Structures are given as C-alpha cells and as structure tokens.
C-alpha cells in the first residue's frame, strides 16, 4: 500500500517535471534579452520578442487583481463574520459553483456584458473576466484564513478597549494577512496563464498597446497563435513564450510560499 502511494506521489510530480524539462529543451535557446524587449517580427521571420505580450499579461493581471482582490477579500471577510446565516451559506455555495465554472463560460459572459455593449474587444473586458475567476478563490482562502484566527485573540483585543472595527482590522485581519496574501498570489498564479476567457475579451494584439480600451496582447494568446501557425520560427517563439509564462507562475508561487513561511515564524514587526 505504501509502495503504491509512493508511486502515485512520484507520478503526481511527473507532468510538471516533464513540462519544465521539455520547455527548457525547446524554448530556452530562444530566450534572449531581445525576447523581453522587442516586438514580434512579421510572420515567418525569425527572432523578435514578446514585449507586448509580457506587458499585456502583466496589465491583465493587474486589472484582474483590482477587480478580484477587493471583492474576494471583502466577501471572504463577510463569510467569516457571518458563518451561519442564510446569505453566507448561499454566497459560499455560489462561490464554489463559480470556482468550478469552465473559464470559457466566464469569457462568454464577459463578451456579452463588456465587449458587445461597448462595441469592441478590450483589455478591460479581459481583466474583468480574469478578475471574476479570482473572486471565488480569494473569497474562500480569505474566509478560511480569518477563521483560523482564534476567537480568543478577538476577545483579548476587545477586552483591551479596542473597538470592533479596530479589532477586525489590526488584530484579526493582521493575523490572517500572510495567509490572505498567499491566497491572493495563488489566485493570480492561477489566472496568469488562462487563455479561454481572453479569447472573447482581450483578443490579443500584434502591436504595442497598454490601453485598457483596446485589444491587448497576452502571453497565452500569443503562444496559441504562434503554436497554430505553420512556421518553425513561430513555434520556437511559442516555446519560449510558454517558458516565460511558466516562469512567471513559478515565481508568483514561490513568493506565495515565502509569504506563508513568514506566518509560521511569527514575524515580529
């Protein structure tokens, strides 16, 4: 039995190791400084970079965070505070449903409400779609982290003459903060590579654009369009782009892990 679980544990890590190994083999050679600073070359031409897609992905992540984090953290605080009441139970259930919703459905939703009425694809619509994906993840981790804070700490603060509001912010929220930050980073890592919701919203852009109202390039979209093109040079760029994307996700995950560790160290001031 132990042997089988051991085997399963090994197999569980295989896909990631295989992907990273393959990406390094196929893409590492094409990662040069110019990949980060230059624009894509016309189709079929070698070289060039993905500066627009990298910046586009960062802008999309930022927009998604502006939408997803306040709503998710706020909702999580509410759920933690009103754990038993009907609205909280309904919100918790719906948030789990939203979490399980296929991301393409969110993309269609964003298209219906943010693309069609405003007459065009936009970075804003893409960011909102990604932000909507973040909400349930952030809501549930925030709720759980707040609940992990012992009630006795709350009581101790109230007994010191803290107001309820200050107790919530400077004791409960402060104690749960490392966990909430970790949850937020995990959610960001999760949406950074999403492609489906962007197909109908951000659309992708061959040119440099940082406007929220224009279609915007994004790494997953760029990888997709390069990967389905017939040129070897484009394939090389797709591999390199995938490597950069996975590196971004890995870095965010590492930061998330570091933030959690601070929690167990106690982290004085």
């Amino acid at each position, binding site marked *: 039995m132990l042997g089988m679980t051991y085997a399963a544990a090994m197999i569980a890590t295989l896909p990631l190791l295989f992907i990273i190994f393959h990406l390094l083999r196929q893409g590492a050679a094409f990662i040069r400084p110019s990949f980060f600073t230059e624009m894509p070359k016309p189709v079929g031409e070698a070289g060039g970079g993905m500066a627009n897609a990298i910046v586009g992905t960062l802008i999309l992540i930022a927009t998604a965070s502006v939408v997803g984090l306040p709503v998710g953290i706020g909702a999580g605080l509410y759920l933690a505070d009103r754990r038993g009441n009907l609205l909280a139970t309904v919100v918790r259930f719906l948030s789990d449903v939203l979490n399980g919703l296929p991301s393409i459905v969110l993309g269609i939703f964003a298209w219906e409400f943010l693309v069609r009425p405003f007459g065009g694809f936009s970075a804003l619509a893409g960011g909102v779609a990604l932000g909507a994906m973040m909400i349930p993840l952030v809501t549930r981790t925030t709720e759980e982290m707040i609940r992990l804070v*012992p009630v006795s700490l709350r*009581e*101790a603060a109230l007994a*010191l*003459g*803290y107001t309820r509001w*200050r107790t919530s912010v400077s004791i409960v929220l402060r*104690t749960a903060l490392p966990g909430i930050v970790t949850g937020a980073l995990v959610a960001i890592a999760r949406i950074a590579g999403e492609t489906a919701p962007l197909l109908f919203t951000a659309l992708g852009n061959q040119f440099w654009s940082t406007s929220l109202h224009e279609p915007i390039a994004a790494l997953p979209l760029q990888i997709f369009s390069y990967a389905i093109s017939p040129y070897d040079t484009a394939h090389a760029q797709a591999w390199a782009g995938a490597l950069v994307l996975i590196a971004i996700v890995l870095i965010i995950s590492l930061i998330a892990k570091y933030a959690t560790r601070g929690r167990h160290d*106690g982290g004085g001031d």
Partner: protein
Amino acid sequence: MAAETEPLLRTRRLNAWFGGTRVLRNVTLDFADCSVTAVIGPSGCGKSTLLRCLNRMHETAPGANVEGDVFLGPTSIYKGDLNAIAVRRHIGMVFQRPTPFPTMSIRDNVAAGLRIRIGAGPSKKETDEIVETALERAGLWNEVKDRLRESAMGLSGGQQQRLCIARALATRPTVILLDEPTASLDPLSTQTIEELVHELKQTIAVVIVTHNMQQAARVSDRTAFMLAGEMIEAAPTSSLFTNPRDSRTEDYVTGRFG
C-alpha cells in the same frame, strides 16, 4: 488593607442571558479595592459570565443580554458616562489561555492597549517607560528585557500569561479580572502567577475566577460561591472555607459535588 470602607466595584441585582438562557440571577456582590476576591463554583455556574459582565465583555457575545447594574466607584458602568471601551480600559481582563497577539513583538503586545485610536497615544519614549513598568509589575521584565523586539510567540505558556497581565496593566486599570488564569499552566507557572496576584493587590483590586478551591484559598481575601447563576455566599476566604453559612457552600467546599 483588605478592609476598605467603600467597595471599589459593586454589582446590583445583575442578571445575564445567553439568548433565552438565564445565566446570572440577581447577583449582588462587592469587590474591595487592594484585595483579591475569588469567585468559585462548579462548571456552568455563571462565574465567568459574572466576570465578563464586570467589564462589559458579556455583551460582545451574540444573543447576550444584561440587566441590573455594576458600579465602579460611584459610576454605573452600564448607565453612566463611561462607554464600553472606557470601561474595559479601567477594568483589565486576562483569559484562561494566554492570548499574545502573534503578529506583534513582546514590546508591542504590552503597548497594544495604549493607543485608543490610531495616531493618538503616548510618545515612543513614554511607551517604552510604560512597557517597562508594566512588565516589571507582571514580574516578566528581567526575563524579556533583552528581547523586547522578538515575537511574543517564543515565550513559554507561563511567560505568555504574564505578558497578557502586563498588557492589561499597561492601561493602568483600577481592577483586573482574571478568568481561570492558570487553567492551562503547569504547577510552577501557576505558583508564579499566584505570587504575582499577591503583588498586584498591593495597588489594585483583583477578581479571580477559579475552579480550583485550593487556589482560591491561597490567593484571595474574600471568596464568593456561585451555583446555577446565583450568588450563594460571599465571605472572607478563611471563614467561607472553614465555617460556611449555607449548606450548599459547605457541600461544595467539602467536595461533595462539583
């Protein structure tokens, strides 16, 4: 010293509820300044609720309700000018389990109650002095003076509890409420806390809830016995234990139930 003429803290026909359950029944009890009053009784008799009514912590629980009154000196803490926040700064409280704030250093834990609002409070230098005094009074200064900036979570359970006492003392309360303060501690730490209680009563009133009758006998000047939400008997500790007037008190202190 224990025989103050006017009691510092008085409850008058105090009743308390959790939702529909009445947990205190017309409790009238006096607490003298510069002395230790112990409240004993079996589990669920309402002794912790009584304590929590004395600094208006009871009302923070959902569905909790209080009737009757509590006076700090001449002032009603429920109907007077003091709001709940001010009451809790005058009447400090320490809980059964140590509750240091995990995100704060030892120093910041002690200073936690000093600022009423963000941006209003003593200067850094004054704060350092208050922290030192409070830690001295809690008998912890010598053990932590070299690591004030470290996390309070590194302290032992007994040290954490004394840190919580220091934190409660920092706001200069006139009464300190101890809710089974040694229930989670080892015998040695318990002894340290009991010695500390002796020190504290030189300057302030101490109310201690305990289910340990030996502890009540060791530390208190007066003892009150509660049963099913009622105050059965309150008397000088030695006479309550050796010569109880009520048969129920006698049954309890002689170990026939509870």
